[in-house]
C-alpha cells in the first residue's frame, strides 16, 4: 500500500459530490483504476447524484435555511395525542375481535349450564409471563385462555405471537392430567387440524411449552389441547 493511499480513498466523497480540484480529481481517477475497495464503494454510491437531484435545486427543505419549515402546513398537535389516538384505534379493533369472542363464549356458557357444569370459559386478556424470552415481548401477541370442556378442569393460556414464518404458540397450562401425552392442535378455516406442539404430562400437572405453526394468527380458527388419545381437554376459538 503506498503511503498516500489513505488520503486518496477519502476523496471518493468529493469525487461523487463534485468540487475536487483538477489535481485531486486526476489523482483519485488514477487511484480508482487499481483500488478495488474504492471501485466497490463507488458502485454503491454512484446512484446518489440522481437521487440528490430529486430533492430539487434547493436541496429540499432540509437544506433550505429554514429547516424547521419542513412540516409547514402540517398540523402539529403534541405527539402524545397521536399515540393516544392510535392506541384507541388498536383497542377499537381489538374490541371488535373480543366482542365476537364474547358472543361465542356466551353460547358456550349456555351449553355448559345445560350440561350442569359451569366451568366458566374465560376469554380475557391476561398478562403474559414476565419471565418469557425478551425478544417476544415487543412482538404483537394475542392471548387466549382456552375454555376447559365440561368434566375437565385444565387451565390453558396460549399466547399467539406473530412471526415472519407463521405463529409462535406459547402455551402455559395448569391442572393438567398427570400422565400421558398432550398436544396442541391448530385448526384452520377449512377445519384442517394439525399438531403444533406435543409434550409429556408432568407430575405437577403444570407445563410451559412453545409450539409453532405456519399459519398466521388470523388463519387460525381454533386451538385445542388434546390428550394423546385424542380427548379434547380445552379449546379456544380465535
Amino acid at each position: 500500500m503506498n503511503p498516500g493511499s489513505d488520503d486518496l480513498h477519502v476523496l471518493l466523497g468529493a469525487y461523487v459530490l463534485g468540487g475536487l480540484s483538477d489535481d485531486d480529481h486526476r489523482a483519485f481517477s488514477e487511484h480508482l483504476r487499481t483500488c478495488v475497495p474504492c471501485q466497490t464503494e463507488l458502485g454503491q454510491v454512484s446512484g446518489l447524484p440522481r437521487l440528490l437531484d430529486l430533492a430539487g435545486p434547493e436541496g429540499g427543505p432540509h437544506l433550505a435555511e429554514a429547516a424547521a419549515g419542513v412540516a409547514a402546513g402540517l398540523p402539529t398537535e403534541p405527539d402524545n395525542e397521536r399515540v393516544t389516538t392510535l392506541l384507541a384505534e388498536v383497542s377499537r379493533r381489538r374490541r371488535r375481535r373480543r366482542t365476537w369472542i364474547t358472543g361465542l363464549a356466551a353460547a358456550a356458557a349456555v351449553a355448559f349450564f345445560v350440561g350442569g357444569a359451569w366451568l366458566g370459559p374465560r376469554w380475557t386478556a391476561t398478562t403474559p409471563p414476565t419471565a418469557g424470552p425478551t425478544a417476544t415481548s415487543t412482538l404483537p401477541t394475542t392471548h387466549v385462555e382456552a375454555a376447559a370442556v365440561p368434566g375437565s378442569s385444565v387451565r390453558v393460556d396460549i399466547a399467539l405471537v406473530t412471526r415472519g414464518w407463521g405463529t409462535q404458540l406459547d402455551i402455559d397450562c395448569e391442572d393438567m392430567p398427570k400422565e400421558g401425552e398432550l398436544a396442541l392442535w391448530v385448526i384452520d378455516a377449512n377445519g384442517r387440524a394439525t399438531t403444533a406442539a406435543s409434550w409429556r404430562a408432568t407430575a405437577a400437572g403444570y407445563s410451559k411449552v412453545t409450539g409453532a405453526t405456519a399459519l398466521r394468527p388470523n388463519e387460525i380458527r381454533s386451538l385445542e389441547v388434546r390428550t394423546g388419545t385424542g380427548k379434547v381437554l380445552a379449546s379456544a376459538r380465535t
Partner: protein
Amino acid sequence: MPLDDEAVAEIYREHGPMLRRVVWRATSDANRVDDIVQEVILRVWKQAPDAENLRAYLITTARHLIVDQHRAAGRRPQQAQLVEIAERDSALDRALDQVLVEEALGRLQTNHREIVRCLYYERLTVAETSVRVGVPEGTVKSRAYYAVRNLRVILDEMGVTR
C-alpha cells in the same frame, strides 16, 4: 393486552414523525396524513412487526397505501386507462423518492449535510467550501466521504436502493 399497546406506541414514537412528513409531502393532504400513518403502523404491526428493516417496510406500506388511495380517488370507469395510471404512479413514485431523499438528508449529521449542500447543490469547490464552512480542506474531504457513505446507509435503510 398492554403488550400490543406498547409495541404499537413504540413503532409510532420511533417512526411516526418521519412517516407523517413523508405522507404529508407525498399527498399534501393534511386531513389524510394521520389516517394514513395510523393505518400504515397498524398494518405493519399486524403483518410483519419483526421485519428486519421496519423503516423500509413502513415506507413501502405507506407507498402502497398512498398509491391505492390515489388510484381509488382518480378512477373513473371510462377513463381508467392503463397508461394514465402508470404515468400517475410513476409521478407519485418520484414524489415519494424525493420526499425520502429529503428525509435522508434531514437525518444526516448537520456538518455532513452542510458539506453536501456546498459541494453538490451549490457547486462550490472543496477550497471554497473550506472557506465557507471554516474548516481545513482535508476536513471537507473527509466529511464529504462520510456524508456520502452515511447517506447511502440511510437510504438503504429506507428501502431506496437505486
